């Protein structure tokens, strides 16, 4: 899936290195892998960070293996490869994301979280949360701040907040300092994949109640 319009908001080097090193929480890896499926610029950067990993592996002092290691490996090889998890066919979303949904956008089980906004939490490890957000054209996600890092990748439509405009393929990396209110553009509903490694902090108390109910 290669997005035709130009992607202007990319992943940070820190996230790309973390993805390459394998040290990010699963939910972040999902956002990164989905963005890489849409953005050749970042895919090339991620692969070049892999080559640092390769150079590091190459430069490792060696650690001896048991005498039987090679024959045990040959036995593993004889057993044949493990079956890879099938990727749902004909999805309208990038492969890594379809694998978590088990299909395309029409298979998402949305739950309303107020003001027309809907979400679907995806199952990942607990270190961070990943969810799909559905923001109707012109609607806003309640004003909120962050304790940790929040990644928001636009899949369809576009949104704007206090910092910039984000269209399909763009990713917003929001740190603790950002307090924002994303608004979907008029004309198209906006669908995003978002990941946070800490709960969001809403300014008003009603969303805070909603938060405790809906795992926002």
């Amino acid at each position, binding site marked *: *899936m*290669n997005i035709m319009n130009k992607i202007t908001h990319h992943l940070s*080097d*820190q996230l790309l*290195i*973390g993805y*390459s*090193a*394998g*040290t990010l*929480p*699963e939910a972040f*890896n999902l956002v*990164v*892998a*989905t963005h*890489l*499926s849409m953005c*050749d*610029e970042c*895919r*090339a*950067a*991620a*692969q*070049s*960070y*892999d*080559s*640092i*990993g*390769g*150079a*590091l*592996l*190459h*430069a*490792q*002092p*060696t*650690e*001896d*293996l*048991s005498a039987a*290691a*090679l024959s*045990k*490996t*040959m036995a*593993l*090889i004889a057993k*044949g*490869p493990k079956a890879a998890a099938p990727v749902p066919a004909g999805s309208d979303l*990038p*492969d*890594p*994301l379809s*694998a978590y949904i088990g299909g395309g956008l029409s298979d998402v089980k949305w739950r309303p979280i107020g003001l027309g906004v809907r979400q679907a939490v995806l199952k*990942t*490890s607990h270190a961070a949360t990943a969810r799909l957000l559905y923001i109707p054209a012109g609607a806003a996600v309640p004003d909120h701040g962050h304790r940790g890092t929040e990644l928001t990748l636009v899949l369809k439509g576009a949104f704007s907040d206090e910092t910039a405009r984000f269209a399909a393929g763009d990713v917003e990396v929001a740190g603790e300092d950002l307090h924002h209110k994303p608004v979907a553009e008029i004309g198209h509903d906006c669908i995003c994949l978002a990941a946070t490694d800490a709960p969001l902090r809403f300014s008003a108390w009603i969303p805070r109640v909603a938060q405790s109910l809906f795992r926002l």
Partner: protein
Amino acid sequence: MRMNLEIVQETGASDHQVAYVAYNSNALDDQKANIRAVTKAIPKNIWVDHLKRIQTDQDQQAFAELFGYFAPRVKAFLMKSGAAPGMAEDCTQEVMATLWHKAHLFDPSRASVSTWIFTIARNKNIDALRKQRRPEPEELTWGPEAEPEASDILVMQQESEQLSQAMKSLPGQQRELIEKAYFGDLSHGQIAAETGLPLGTIKSRLRLALTKLRQTMK
């Protein structure tokens, strides 16, 4: 249009030809010099042929040699990433078995063998130690007629070797920074910027390769 072209060709033929030949022989010399430099700098470190032999002939001798070189490095890598020795041993065997099974997916114009093995070991680490799934970007596969070119393979392997050399000669503190980023859960600094590792050309070359790939897929 055709007339114009012919006129240009007629009048400018000799100049063009000379320039073309000069350019071509230069390129050829450059390439030869490159090949000499590579074979001189890395007598044994190109494992690409080994992988090819595994892929096409299920060559166990080639696998044994590759195993002898890389398995002890993979085990060291997994232990530094937090695996106990027994677990690192088991995971290493699985990593090397995966290498055999996936040998046909290795693309030497996009990665060195050690980079490719690193990605397999990293994924094994995430799976076995961190107990997480590893989402991977959508696969981009080469069409049957779009085999990577020999010169692309050569350059990628050469630059990877330069990167390896640069890594080995990094001052201790900078090397430590990278090891922390790749083995620990510390936040990651701007590795390329802070250490001056030659990543720029690899990055832009991979970017070009992807553009080329997208064009052949259309």
